[in-house]
């Protein structure tokens, strides 16, 4: 990047040093998040990998965190930016609790707050390099939404980030139903995560599934999916195309 965009904060144009503190590209990244609404609330799945470029460097990163009483945030993209977002939300939840007045931030409010933050950062050419998934339940109503690093935000019955958009969502479009039980929901998510495991090279076989219902948030212990590598086509992959690998 040789061009610089002057940041005019009213007093002075920022110097080259300050410029180097803007996000240019991500370093340690998490891959897809997949989430669905189900009968009692929202289910979200993510693996625990943090890639450093093409190296799978970190294998114990929790990319889903509970926010307040009613929400769950999952993130893909730059892990350090995710941690920054968690700090913002910590402060938000703290101030909300300090009011101590019977009102509390629901998933809709958190989602919109994050949309504002992401969009504003994008406008300053200093984005938080994440795609965020926000799910929650409040007063019996389930909520599931997404915000991207450029501030695009929407709600849906099922969302996914990154590769999940291409590999998981077609499955969900076919097989999602509003009245999925917990077991069926988990099975559906595992089906999506298995496809991602096979086809996304930054995915690892160590995943967590999180559940939010009216009662609260639970994040499962990490576990792995059974995979099958004995497909005949894997045995002699270049059979149909000599010379390829």
């Amino acid at each position: 990047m040789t061009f610089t965009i002057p940041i005019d904060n009213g007093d002075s144009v920022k110097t080259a040093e300050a410029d180097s503190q803007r996000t240019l590209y991500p370093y340690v990244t998490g891959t897809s998040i997949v989430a669905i609404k189900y009968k009692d609330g929202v289910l979200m799945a993510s693996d625990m990998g943090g890639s450093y470029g093409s190296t799978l460097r970190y294998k114990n990163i929790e990319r889903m965190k509970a926010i307040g009483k009613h929400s769950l945030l999952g993130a893909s993209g730059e892990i350090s930016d995710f941690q920054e977002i968690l700090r913002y939300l910590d402060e938000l939840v703290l101030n909300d609790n300090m009011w101590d007045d019977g009102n509390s931030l629901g998933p809709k409010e958190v989602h919109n707050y994050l949309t504002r933050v992401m969009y504003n950062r994008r406008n300053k050419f200093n984005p938080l390099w994440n795609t965020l998934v926000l799910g929650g339940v409040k007063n019996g109503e389930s909520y599931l939404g997404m915000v991207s690093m450029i501030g695009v935000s929407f709600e849906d019955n099922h969302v996914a980030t990154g590769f999940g958009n291409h590999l998981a969502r077609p499955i969900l479009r076919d097989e999602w139903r509003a009245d999925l039980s917990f077991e069926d929901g988990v099975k559906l998510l595992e089906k999506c995560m298995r496809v991602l495991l096979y086809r996304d090279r930054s995915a690892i076989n160590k995943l967590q599934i999180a559940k939010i219902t009216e009662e609260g948030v639970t994040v499962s212990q990490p576990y792995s999916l059974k995979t099958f590598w004995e497909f005949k086509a894997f045995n002699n992959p270049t059979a149909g195309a000599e010379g390829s690998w």
Partner: protein
Amino acid sequence: MFRNQYDTDVTTWSPTGRLFQVEYAMEAVKQGSAAIGLRSRSHVVLASVNKAQSELSSHQRKIFKVDDHIGVAIAGLTADGRVLSRYMRSESINHSFTYESPLPVGRLVVRLADKAQVCTQRSWKRPYGVGLLVGGLDESGAHLYYNCPSGNYFEYQAFAIGSRSQAAKTYLERRFESFNESSREDLIKDAILAIRETLQGETLKSSLCTVSVLGVDEPFHFLDQDSIQKVIDTFENVPEEEEDGGEAEAEAAAAEQGGAGDQDVAPMEM
């Protein structure tokens, strides 16, 4: 009545621990025309007496919509009230924009109170000379608050401020226990009856008062003159009697004609 020595600026205490400038500001509230608020579990009604400078002019606006779920009635220096209403609208809209969710009224009144408090602790400022009855909804239902020039705020089931508000307060004190369960219509009727108390002698006409309602599933809006007149007509068949004991008699007569929803009317006291 005159405490001249320690009342020059708001940052001077009197030896008895009072800030006279703040108390004078509260006097200004008592000079304004009456404003009344009452709430049930699900609705809040704000009503005010329309006062005009002269017959030629229009009357002062005393009730403002802050948001779909919050309204405010003011008494005192209406210019101060207008400025504070604008502040409230701004806070409400900023919250809505960031969180896509209505600002809980309890949090708005705290900000308003803190703003008023600042003016009681800066030597170059003066307290706002306006009392605000803030009615609104949040997660826990309907609320009515009174914000004072002193920076204090209190929550009420029903309250009245401004000139001759004591008459309205007396009326409300007898009935307030039933307000929580009141229907929307009864709440409106009680508000108009309370307004009538402050008029003390004048015939109650819909042109003399402004009434506004907000509730669960009902955004803040004003009642039009016809609706107000209809409510007045349900009880205004008894000719108005003079003050003192007459007040209670007229009230009891009106209560009889009020019919259905009206709960226990306290027996007349002479």
